[in-house]
């Protein structure tokens, strides 16, 4: 399981495309410089980052760094609450987004809004930081599911953008989240996100993706 600090640092690195100093990372993430140095030393040993100058670090292999982040992150184990409803997934997003503007959507929502046309899906993932979304009055049924990830690491909302009225995590964060969800729908959504951002590793063959690409 990824510690909160390390998660913040990996996220900062993966979302940035320019060399950055370790002090800047520490400021942006709120982590101590010693933790940043320690994480950088590990990543440098793994050849995932390199040091273009003495004071800065740059991502050496973004593909690998994203996979590393996803494999360490593993949100399958995170605490979650599942709400099944008769609403279609997109309808569910809209309703929940309107009722609980504090939620930050990820995974399928980000893939859809990025224009990646993910596979037909039934699970809408959202981060519920305040745990105040339990009283959602959703019509019962089994058409789609709202998966509320109840996390304490509210840095995840820091770079969320408002898209179609929903707070949505950046594409790379959504990709990492999707990789951690072990369903074929998530896999297809992650694959379709790879078409939007060429740095995202394609985790399936194009023939396997077929109509979704």
């Amino acid at each position, binding site marked *: 399981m990824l510690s909160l600090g390390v998660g913040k640092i990996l996220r900062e690195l993966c979302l940035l495309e320019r060399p950055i100093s370790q002090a800047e990372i520490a400021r942006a993430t709120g982590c101590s410089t010693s933790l940043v140095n320690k994480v950088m030393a590990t990543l440098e040993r*793994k*050849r*995932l980052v390199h040091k273009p100058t003495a004071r800065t670090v740059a991502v050496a292999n973004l*593909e*690998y760094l994203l*996979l*590393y982040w*996803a*494999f*360490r992150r593993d949100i*399958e184990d995170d605490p979650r609450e599942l709400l099944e409803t008769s609403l279609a997934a997109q309808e569910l997003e809209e309703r929940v987004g309107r009722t609980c503007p504090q939620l930050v959507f990820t995974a399928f929502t980000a893939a859809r809004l990025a224009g990646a046309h993910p596979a037909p899906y039934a699970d809408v993932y959202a981060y519920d930081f305040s745990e105040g979304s339990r009283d959602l009055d959703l019509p019962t049924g089994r058409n789609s599911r709202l998966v509320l990830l109840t996390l304490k690491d509210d840095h995840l909302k820091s770079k969320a953008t408002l898209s179609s009225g929903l707070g949505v995590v950046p594409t790379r964060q959504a990709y990492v989240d999707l*990789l951690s969800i*072990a369903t074929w729908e998530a896999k297809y959504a992650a694959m379709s996100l790879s078409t939007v951002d060429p740095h995202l*590793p*394609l*985790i*399936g*063959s194009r023939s396997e993706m077929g109509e979704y690409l």
Partner: protein
Amino acid sequence: MLRSLEVLDRLRAIAIPFVVIGGWAVYLFTHYHMSRDLDLIMEQKDLWKLKSFVISQGGTEKAPGLSKYGYKLGQVDMDVYTEEKGDIIPSPGEILSGKRFVDVERYRVVEPEVLLLLKVRAATERAAGLKGLKDRCDVISLLNSGRIDLNTFAAESRRHAQPNTVNEVLRIVEMADEEFEYVLGKRPTPQEKWRLKRELVRSLRRLEA
């Protein structure tokens, strides 16, 4: 084209948890011959990580067999055993849950005695052909490395209801000929071969007694 050491290195770099068994495990203990293929044990829940990585690097997943998962990446064939799919003794589940592995050169490698048990079984099951020869070489190089505690090995064999394993090792050593040449990396003189064989046979006979 990716080679197996490079693949191992990358798997470790991107935090895929695995335990090395097979020819690579022998190499890490003995630095004798590198192996072309990779044999790994991992938890079923982590298998998606390996699959995602292999496919993202242009590799393929083979149709899963009854006893293992298979992947191909570059020139490298990977056989993966999990607690749900792994016809080896000791079972992958036992190796993982019992933490029957040690750190060697920053890799997690199955304990040498357990590795010897796995290798002896492989050598017995596929005695003919090049793979059988490589298995016998692996057995001898492990014995010759000084990393094996023979008493632990014998206890391990008994614990897994494989009491004949010590006899099998003895038979492999007694019958070995060209294996010594591969293990030592040179053609040994008859005296050298005899001395080596005698030492191994003596220690194995003591166990048998």
